[in-house]
């Protein structure tokens, strides 16, 4: 298994697009789009919690977010798990961080390694 990834966004299209772009370099990684709320823009904690469950393969889940409440909802969903080994929210640019995370996870990186790959994403091109 690899670390799983959840993309938390205000937009369903944005989350799906980030998953699509990141998946192109990480065919074996479970990437889940958790975007949009109630058919429109917004963040949805249930989508995020279900996304974590879907992305969890035993090696942990990394969450990336777009802006504002997406981070808060990601944090809340992780806190609700009650186990910091299971999932972590990373503070990284969304698209760049998602690609870096996905590539790291594809390479068999641990949760901590994926987090640091995401955090240094902007220096790559």
């Amino acid at each position: 298994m690899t670390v799983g990834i959840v993309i938390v966004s205000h937009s369903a299209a944005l989350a799906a697009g980030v998953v699509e772009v990141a998946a192109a370099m990480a065919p074996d990684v479970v990437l889940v789009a958790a975007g949009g709320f109630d058919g429109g823009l917004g963040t949805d904690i249930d989508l995020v919690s279900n996304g974590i469950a879907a992305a969890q393969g035993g090696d942990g889940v990394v969450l990336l977010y777009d802006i504002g409440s997406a981070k808060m909802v990601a944090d809340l969903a992780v806190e609700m798990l009650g186990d910091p080994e299971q999932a972590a929210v990373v503070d990284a640019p969304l698209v760049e961080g998602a690609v870096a995370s996905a590539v790291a996870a594809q390479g068999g990186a641990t949760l901590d390694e994926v987090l640091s790959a995401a955090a240094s994403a902007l220096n790559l091109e």
Partner: protein
Amino acid sequence: MGCDARSVAAAVVAAAGVVGEHRDELVRLDQAMGDADHGENLRRGFGFVVSALDESTPDTPGAVLKLVASVLISKVGGAAGPLFGTSFLRAAGAVGAAEELTPELVSAALGAALGGVVARGKAELGDKTMVDALAPAASARGADIPTLLTAAAIAADAGAESTIPLVARKGRASYLGERAIGHLDPGARSVALLLRSFANSAMGL
């Protein structure tokens, strides 16, 4: 008559009504500095809260607050969801299993609510957020609940007004830089509206 689960639930339902009445005002405030959804986010969220309370009134004040928290967290798609949600959740924790609220418990609940918003959103006083209304409210004191909540509402009102000349350093409005100056923060306004409504409910007890 004491401040039991039923009165807390009634105060929440009354507050939901106030949120509904101020929906458009909150939308306009958020339009100037954000994405124009704050009023609708809250109206919708409190609508679900009222439905949840219609279905079952939990039997302690803490349980009411906890129900409010979980509905807001899952039914509000903007920052107000996790922020108000966390604040109601922490307030619920602060009042514990008490059958009736006391001024001390209300004060503890307000302090815990503030702690929850700060933990969730990392804003400090002066960042032009709901913290600027909630922080002074949490410092209010009073010998009885109506007095305490009235003092809190007055403090929250002043705190909300104090956001007008500020630049925002948290939330969407932080993208506006200097252009946020001159606008009242929508979240601070809704904190003030909720506390005013709670104070009014408490006076009617």
